[in-house]
Every structure is written in structure tokens, then in C-alpha cells.
């Protein structure tokens, strides 16, 4: 039976991860409350057709239309109140959100439920990223709210990080291996 991968946040990292995972024998669920803005089309796998739509639903429509990939879209914000319900049944959770509070809720929920979880986290200036399994991850505090990846400035690095996340998921799907890494524009540091 196919595994269910729940991706929380389909912005820069999450949208590209779905794109790179389109050949996996899994069921995807995308959770995102945000809407696609025109500027997002420069740094995220969202097109002009999706502008104004909910990101999870725009992702669902794009993947269905371009690749015939079925994806469940959940257009809600994940909170401490609904996290257990939204993540119930997941075989793998992938955290691609953009704030420490949501990351804490995700970690608390997956730890309580025993669900494997991969976190993707990028610096605002596109100079560093972490692709970490939950056991060794803690969110960075106090760095939200600054502009990032304006006009797709860091798109090559975002794609690099998303590819590393896709590789980590593939290894996990193949034999439950959990490989964490730190990335900078010049390479990968295994941790």
C-alpha cells in the first residue's frame, strides 16, 4: 500500500519538493493556508494561473494538470488545535513552513504520534539551509519577518535544498534511512 506523505507549507521548498517527488509511489497531502501572490511565482513552483488561489489548491491543480498527479489539498493553517487530526495517518511529515511556532507544533505532534518528520529550513539571504530529521532538529527563533528571495534571487539555492530534501525522502522511502545535512551554496555538510 502506498505511503502517505504530508507536506506542510508548499511555498519555496514544499512546492519544489512535490515537483521532484512526482514519480514516487505515494499519496501526497499538501497543507497550506496561504495564497499565491504574483511575487511567489519567481521563487516557488506556482504559476501565474495560481495567483490569488490557496497554495495547496493551486499545487493540486498544477500537479493534476501538468503530470496527472493526484494530491490532496488542505487549505488550512496547521495549529496546536488541529495538528493531531491533520497529521493523522501520515507515514511521513515534511515541514516546509516559515516560522518557529509552527515548527514547534509540528515537532510536538509527530513526536507524540511517532511519525517520522523531515524539516527543511533556509536562511533569509540564501546562504545556508538545513535538511534535518526531527530527532536532531530545533527551530531557529527570532528570524522571521524579513523579506527573502525577492524576485527569485535565491531560486537556484532553493532548488538545491529541495533536491536534497527529495533525496532524503527517497532514501527514507527505500530503506527507512534518515540522512540529515546542512547546505551552503558551495556544497553539503553531512550531520
Amino acid at each position: 500500500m502506498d505511503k502517505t506523505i504530508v507536506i506542510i507549507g508548499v511555498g519555496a521548498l514544499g512546492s519544489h519538493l512535490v515537483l521532484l517527488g512526482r514519480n514516487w509511489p505515494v499519496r501526497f497531502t499538501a497543507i497550506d493556508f496561504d495564497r499565491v501572490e504574483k511575487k511567489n511565482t519567481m521563487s516557488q513552483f506556482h504559476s501565474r494561473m495560481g495567483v490569488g488561489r490557496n497554495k495547496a489548491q493551486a499545487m493540486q491543480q498544477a500537479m493534476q494538470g501538468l503530470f496527472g498527479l493526484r494530491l490532496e489539498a488542505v487549505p488550512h493553517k496547521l495549529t496546536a488545535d488541529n495538528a493531531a487530526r491533520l497529521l493523522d495517518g501520515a507515514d511521513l511529515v515534511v515541514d516546509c513552513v516559515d516560522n518557529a511556532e509552527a515548527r514547534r507544533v509540528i515537532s510536538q505532534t509527530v513526536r507524540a504520534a511517532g511519525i517520522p518528520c523531515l524539516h527543511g529550513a533556509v536562511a533569509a539571504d540564501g546562504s545556508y539551509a538545513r535538511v534535518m530529521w526531527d530527532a536532531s532538529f530545533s527551530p531557529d527563533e527570532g528570524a522571521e519577518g524579513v523579506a527573502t528571495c525577492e524576485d527569485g534571487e535565491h531560486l537556484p539555492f532553493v532548488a538545491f535544498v529541495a533536491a536534497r530534501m527529495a533525496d532524503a525522502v527517497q532514501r527514507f522511502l527505500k530503506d527507512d534511512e534518515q540522512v540529515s545535512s546542512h547546505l551552503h551554496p558551495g556544497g553539503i555538510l553531512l550531520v
Partner: protein
Amino acid sequence: MSELYDFGLRPGEARLNITWNGQNGDLPDAVDYDATQQQLRGWAEEAIRAGSIPGVRADRGADLSNFVVDRFPATPAIPYARVMLRPKTPFG
């Protein structure tokens, strides 16, 4: 004289890895694995300003006050301890 471990590290020492402006490198000298965050930031700032980290261009304005310290003990795959000094990574 105490025995040197692989990679020139003694017990309790670690490699300090630094990323600044997207450039990455190791401090040539080993550091104490349990050094304080303030000490680590200070050594790294001094080294970046002096241009003494291979792979990282000298920058007299280096300011690591908001950087995060991650400590990783030796593993079978990487048999020496590492300390990483990195920018915060809030986005996804």
C-alpha cells in the same frame, strides 16, 4: 605528549566550521568542543576579518552576533567532533 587523534584533534577538541556570505570553511585551528557561544563567535569573527579561513574571503565587517552554534559529536561516518557556526534558517 598526548596522543593526537585523527584529523589532528585531541580529546575534547572539535573542528569549527563557519559559513559567512554563503562561503564555507573550517577554522585551521581546533577549538574546545565545549567552548562558549561567545568564544566561538569571537574566534570566528576574528578569523573572517583576518582572512584566515580557507574558502572564506576576508571581511572586516564580519558580524556573527546573530549566528547559531550547532555541536555535532563524532560519528562512525565522521570520526571527529564538529561545531558549526551558521546563520539562522527560519524559512521553508
